[in-house]
């Protein structure tokens, strides 16, 4: 009857809720999404190429710049990969402190996710509440290493710094605060009728499909797959601690939300155990003065707040730079599921889903 045509709109790269410079080209039928093309690369800085021209120690601070809201997790993944390549032994105290830092980082990253996700749905108060707690973590990191965002907090074979005096008490106090604040977040969202309507049944993906499309981290666990690198391939000191891996049932946005909320609690649980059992001893293992791993290649993955972050590093054994440096960025692989998830949903769900898979463009584009 009428000449109806699809409306193509360009969401991003400058858009308030694409979390950076993501560009999504949406084909709309009314408000319904009939097709989506995700365009990335606006923040491509060639980090992999750059790392092939920096020596092994300098790379630690470049990894900070990938997932810049979870710099410590990136550091951890890199140094552990090099340690694996060199078969280095890391002292237990260093492994425990690394675990604490990684878990604090997970909480900080989840705080940022929670704030922006809720903001995308229009609940703006949660944003400031979550950032209030994130600020406390940044203070803890500042106490530890002096930096608030890009920490450069790890060394190959251990840590550059021991924890400052009374730092563990501050961390404990923070864990107590966070446990009460998580209830505050839940108060505002978990049983909020509007939040439920906006998230339940939105972006449903089943477990098998989620695995096939390469989701990892909380996004995969929300679909009911109990996959967590911390449990399955324990690294740092995770094998020593008791914690649960929360999984969802329905695989929708709401379950992914619940999984991350539960991870707040599990993280404080891990941190408390690590502080209780913090061994004495050196923080840096026996590391050669000149780091030059033997020729060979390896892949090592850890559980970053976004999912499985893996490093594939090739050493030629002769030069003081890696021959090939490759990151398996969880945000990149998770983002791949976005066109599948938003198919058939409304424009308003697109922002909910971008928030739900929790991406950082610094890591997607590298």
């Amino acid at each position, binding site marked *: 009857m009428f000449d109806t045509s699809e409306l193509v709109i360009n969401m991003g790269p400058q858009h308030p809720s694409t979390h950076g410079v993501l560009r999504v080209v949406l084909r709309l039928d009314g408000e319904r999404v009939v097709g989506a093309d995700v365009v*990335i*690369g606006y923040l*491509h800085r*060639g980090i*992999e*190429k*750059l790392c092939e*021209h*920096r*020596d092994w120690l300098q790379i630690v601070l470049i990894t900070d710049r990938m997932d810049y809201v979870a710099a410590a997790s990136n550091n951890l993944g890199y140094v552990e990969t090099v340690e*694996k*390549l060199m*078969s280095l032994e890391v002292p237990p105290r260093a492994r425990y402190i690394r675990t604490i830092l990684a878990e604090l980082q997970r909480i900080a990253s989840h705080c940022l996710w929670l704030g922006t996700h809720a903001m995308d749905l229009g609940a703006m108060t949660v944003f400031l509440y979550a950032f209030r707690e994130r600020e406390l973590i940044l203070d803890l990191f500042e106490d530890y290493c002096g930096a608030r965002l890009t920490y450069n907090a790890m060394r190959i074979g251990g840590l550059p710094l021991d924890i400052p005096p009374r730092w563990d008490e501050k961390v404990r106090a923070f864990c107590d605060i966070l446990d009460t604040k998580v209830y505050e977040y839940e108060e505002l969202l978990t049983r909020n009728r509007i939040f439920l309507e906006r998230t339940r049944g939105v972006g449903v993906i089943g477990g*098998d499909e989620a*695995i*096939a*499309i*390469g989701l*990892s981290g909380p996004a995969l666990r929300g679909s009911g*797959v109990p*996959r967590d690198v911390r449990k*399955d*391939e324990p690294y740092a000191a995770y094998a020593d601690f008791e914690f649960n891996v929360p999984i969802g049932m329905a695989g929708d946005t709401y379950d992914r939300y619940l999984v991350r909320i539960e991870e707040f609690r599990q993280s404080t649980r891990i941190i408390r155990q690590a502080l209780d059992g913090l061994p004495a001893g050196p923080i840096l293992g026996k590391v050669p003065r000149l780091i030059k791993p033997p*020729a*060979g*290649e*390896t*892949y090592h*993955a850890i559980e970053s707040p976004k999912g*499985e972050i*893996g490093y*594939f590093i*090739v050493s*030629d054994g*002769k*030069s*003081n*730079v890696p*021959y*090939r440096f*490759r990151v*398996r960025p969880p945000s*990149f*692989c998770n*983002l*791949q599921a976005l066109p599948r998830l938003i198919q058939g949903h409304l424009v308003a769900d697109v922002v909910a889903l971008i928030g739900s898979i929790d991406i950082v463009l610094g890591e997607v*584009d*590298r």
Partner: protein
Amino acid sequence: MPEPTRTIAPPAGPPDPPPAPEIAVPSFIATLHERLPGAVPRVSYWVGDWTLILESPRLLDVAHYLRDAPDARFNFLSDVTASDWPVRAKRFDVIYTLYSIPLRHRVRLKIHVADGEGVPTVSGIWPSANWLEREVFDLFGVRFEGHPDLRRILMPDDWQGHPQRKDYPLEGPGELLLEGPMEWLRLRKTDIE
């Protein structure tokens, strides 16, 4: 501080050492040899990682087998990447990192590819290979045959060259981009229209 640069002659490839005799070979590799004889000519073991080195024509067979075999069940494709060894005739290694969520083990597949040679896509087996292969295509110029959507992903669509190759300068292409500025502008404009 002077930038550390490569002064030594470029290596001709990773050592890919075979497993020491005392290392127990995982059962799925043994059955793989049995079921697809000759598909995997070399097996390598290094710091705990198993790597199967094969030729690209057999890639899909092996990939299918590894995904579906009951003792392998590699249902999760962690990563697809490549490395560039310019002195070699088949200069690229394309590396697939597989993980089995039910059985919790890993393996890597590796194929050698010459410049311009096509590689069969595994995106039909693991949909997650879609973007990962696009990235390898973008940064290395390895073509994936049968890929549903082989476009550049990180670099602009009109970019020339493949930045992750070893013969590509760190500082970028220099005047390459400015070769035809009008052409470039025209491309941009049609993109907007």
